[in-house]
């Protein structure tokens, strides 16, 4: 367990409503530090729910989730928030940038929230440089293309040098060229910086670039294989 940065045991998630949805049905999982894991599966199979539950964005209904050895159930909302601010980065399909902030301000936001005010701007600029947006610091999201916005999101995700980067359909809204560019950046970050990465995707092309792929169906992991190693 020591090398496992992410772990889940008998993880269940129900959505209450007019009809109760059993989204995750006892998922067992462990991810090692520095791994790049893709979660695939048909729509509604629970990919995003699994990512949300593992990252602490959503509460779990039953079971346990550990992040870096800490039981998520035992953490308060503020502690989970702090953990996200200090140790995690997020990339979403629809970028979700703050429209009132410029690119560099959006990127420095996690640092400021984590109280790392010193050098925040420099680090944000460096992160933007890394994703090839050195010329777009002061642009607001509305004046950036889809691919550029997603790169700002990646810069924001890496700016605090997190242990884990969570990406939910990071290329889902992009064309092939932009999509490849984004994956190049993510793979480079994984290889060079050793960030653990968990990404949800429905594209084989994207999943193939990850070191390991989890196939989900109806709330359970049906297949778990390393690329080149196939079914394990």
């Amino acid at each position, binding site marked *: 367990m020591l090398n496992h940065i992410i772990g889940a045991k008998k993880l269940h998630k129900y959505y*209450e409503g007019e009809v109760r949805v059993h989204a995750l049905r006892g998922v067992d999982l462990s991810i090692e530090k520095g791994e790049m894991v893709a979660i695939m599966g048909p729509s509604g199979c629970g990919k995003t729910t699994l990512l949300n539950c593992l*990252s602490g964005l959503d509460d779990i209904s039953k079971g346990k989730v550990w992040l870096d050895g800490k039981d998520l159930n035992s953490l308060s909302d503020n502690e989970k928030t702090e953990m996200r601010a200090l140790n995690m980065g997020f990339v979403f399909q629809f970028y979700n940038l703050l429209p009132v902030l410029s690119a560099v301000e959006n990127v420095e936001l996690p640092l400021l929230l984590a109280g790392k005010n010193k050098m925040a701007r420099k680090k944000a600029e460096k992160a933007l440089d890394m994703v090839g947006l050195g010329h777009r610091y002061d642009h607001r999201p509305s004046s950036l293309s889809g691919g550029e916005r997603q790169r700002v999101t990646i810069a924001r995700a890496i700016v605090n040098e997190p242990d884990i980067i969570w990406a939910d359909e990071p290329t889902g809204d992009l064309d092939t060229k932009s999509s490849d560019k984004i994956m190049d950046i993510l793979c480079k970050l994984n290889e060079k910086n050793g960030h653990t990465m968990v990404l949800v995707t429905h594209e084989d092309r994207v999943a193939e670039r990850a070191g390991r792929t989890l196939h989900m169906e109806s709330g359970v992991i049906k297949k778990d294989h390393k690329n080149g190693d196939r079914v394990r």
Partner: protein
Amino acid sequence: MILILLFIIAIIIAIVTVDALRYRVLFRMGFRNIFRRKTNTVIVILGLMIATAIISSSFGVGDTMDNMVESEIYDEWQHTDVTIYNTTEMGDFVPISYETYLSLRSDIEDVDHVEDILGEVHGRTSIYNPNSRLSRSDSILIGTDLDEGEGFGPFYRGGKSFEPGLDQGEIFIDERLAEDIEAEKGDRLTLFTRGFPMGQNYTIREVIENEGRAAFRGDRKVIMSLQDGQSALALPEQINYIRVTSTGGIREGAEYSDQIAADIEEILKEDYGVLEVRENKNQVMEDFKQQMSAFTDTFFIFGAFVIIAAVILTINIFVMLGEERKSEMGMSRAIGMKRSHLRRVFSYEGVFYAAGSSMVGAFVGIGITYAIFFFLKDIFTTFEAEVTFSYESLLLAFCIGFLLTMTTILFSVTRISKLNIVRAIRDIPEPPVSKKSRKLFYLAIGGLILGALLTFAGMSSQQLWLPVTGISLIIIGIGTVVRRWVGDRAAYTVVGIFLLIWWLVPLELLDPFEGYSADIEMFILSGLFVVTAGIMIIMLNGSMITGAMEKFSGSGRGSKAVVLSAISHPLKEKFRTGMTMFIFALIIFAIIVMSMIVGVFNANIDRMIEEQSGGYEILGISDQDRPIDDIYGEIETNENLDINDFNKIDSAFRGMVPSLTEQGDMRRRSVIGVDSNFVDNSTFAFSDYMDEYGSQAEVWEAVMSDPSLTITNDPGDFGMPMDERIELGSTITFIDKDGRSSEKMVVGFMDQMIIDGFFMSKETVRTDFNLTSNSLFFFSVNEDVDPDQLGRDMQRELVPYGFQPIVIDTIFREMMSAQFMFFDLFSGYMGLGLIVGIAGLGIVSLRAVHERRLEIGMMRAIGFKRRMIKYVFIIENSFVTITGIILGTLLGIAVGWLLWYDGFKPMGWEFHIPWWPIISICVIAYFAMLFTAIPSAHKASKVSPAEALRFD
């Protein structure tokens, strides 16, 4: 007060500033959000400022009233600061010898700040101008020493002061009196006074202004020399009225008047027991302001509906801002923003909105105050209202508005910040609150405890609002507990129904609360609870409305699609729709209740006049100095009056008799002595009498034969002193003519408000109080006679007696007309709430266009024409508005019925629904809404499908 509020605001701003410096990025976000959508910002500020504007306008009304009162008092009192006199049971001033006055004067001269003292004779006179054949019966006569009293200012004519001088037989009259009787300088007038009951002629030396020394005691005044005055009032070598002026001038002198009055009282107590300090300028002003504050308070209370609506609008605005930024907030939370950070962003933004809107609102309140007094000028015909707004009021309105808005914003942002990150990021709706929600369960238990506490508190204080509110909270609490098993829809629908039943049940069915006191707060609370109940029922049973609309949506091409698209959205956004509907329903409710009251009054005005008149058309009062012993004979022998015009004529003795209150204070009360003719002829109904009597006739019989019994007006009627509880069986302690206690037990209440007083037999008032002459008269006239004309004829012909007619029908209609004007004004004031509703709907509509761009694009793509999109938005807004209007109207009618049932039905009044005003209000409200809805509908229809589908 202002300092405390300013201090609180300063602390808030200081905290926000320090906090903003600490969280600069959050401040930047909040600040930039303000300018993100400028139109929205303007609408938000306009919406938020309404509460402040209402508060500000009620202060404006208060300031203007205060200023009006001050101006009136200063104008009338001018240099006079303290008055010293006493009155008899007959209302005459008690005279003292001139020598005594001189002695008193020398004592008072030593009192600090006293500048001058003036001894005069004051009395009443009737005046007849033979040239114009016009008369006045109610004029004031003042005999004054023109060589003295410099400290009271000069006399004025034609805008300039002049040196006064009066020879014997010469008088000054004021401009108002001159105008009334069409008299001018040099005319000879006949004055009827106690000294000259058959009349004495005087020549007008000057027509003077009511300014300076002559201003005191209002208009319609005759001034003559002290000697002439003493002769006219049969007070040789005597005075009966002393005025004192202080060294401080007209305004500043008022500051000394309390102290001077207290010092003089000490002097009087020692050596001049017959006199007393009756009024001082400051006290009169304070008393008057106190009376006027009730009027100001009424504005504030009626404004409460609008303030509540504005608070709801504030919540709605922020909830919508929250929804608009939901996805950003979700992402912010995901990357490490805490809930407190989200609250901060909104709070920084909120401080700007609160400050901006409160500032704008405070000034808009001035405009509303102007509008109020523009309409009030028809009511206050005798006062000149100059709209006044003090800096303090402006500041206070700003402070209260700011704190109210800020509190509402903080409440709203706390709600907003509690979002689920995943749902927020993906912009999916929040699921319904779990049946097993512990938080709701605890809230329910809290509600039950609070409800029980309020109910018990009400039982000990006998305040109706406490148990009624307490039991309502208990109903809601039980519903919230029960929802765990039956779900929201069943639980809260039943809660809504129970609340409606509870608030709409007539008081007579609530035996345990009989005798509890209730005031206007019940009106406000009933509005809040019944409207909330109605909204709960509607919003939780929206599917029934959808079903019904589907059925009746017609068979036109696409009409079903348009209707369903239109109503499904508001029913999905329950909180937002419910809040907007609530605003409309609450305001319409309040206006309809007012219309219902006016409607019931209007429908029953003839009956009310008939009841109040007691079978008479004209009431007459003669001067008590000059009573009419044989009114019948007087009319019969008068060649200009025809005794055949009258059906019956009755007379009574009347006087103001000293009595002791429950607290042992002295109070003069009106006493009326009637005879058997009055008892037989009058038809005044009784609202209640003691059980031991079988009928009204028996009550009268007992009072006429037993000198220890009396009948009085119903204490619930207007005009009766409300500061003491007079009940059946209460004993009133009068002081008889010999200074002994004379106790009279109240055995019946007459249901009339036209003659105020305690009714006894003529014999009793003669024996006990020495009231011996007829000065109150009741006339019943033939059907073909015009009471107004006959009243005028009688006033002219009976001028020697100072006869004043009161035509009951006319005076009542005038009174009711003034009352209705107030109701109209209050309705108009509450109508401002419609602006809140319309603004609220405007914001919802604009937001809806923005929020549903993608949906609009999709609708256009699948075949909705531009026209159909427009209809969708208009129908959607119409659905919210019409539902709110219908709900408010139905509940308003129901509460109106309740008011009638509890208050007017026992008096035999008919129930009436004023359909025409109600329909007008509803139509105006609807079309006002369309004014805002059409532009946003138009905007929606202009959305290009291609652009919308690409919209992010």
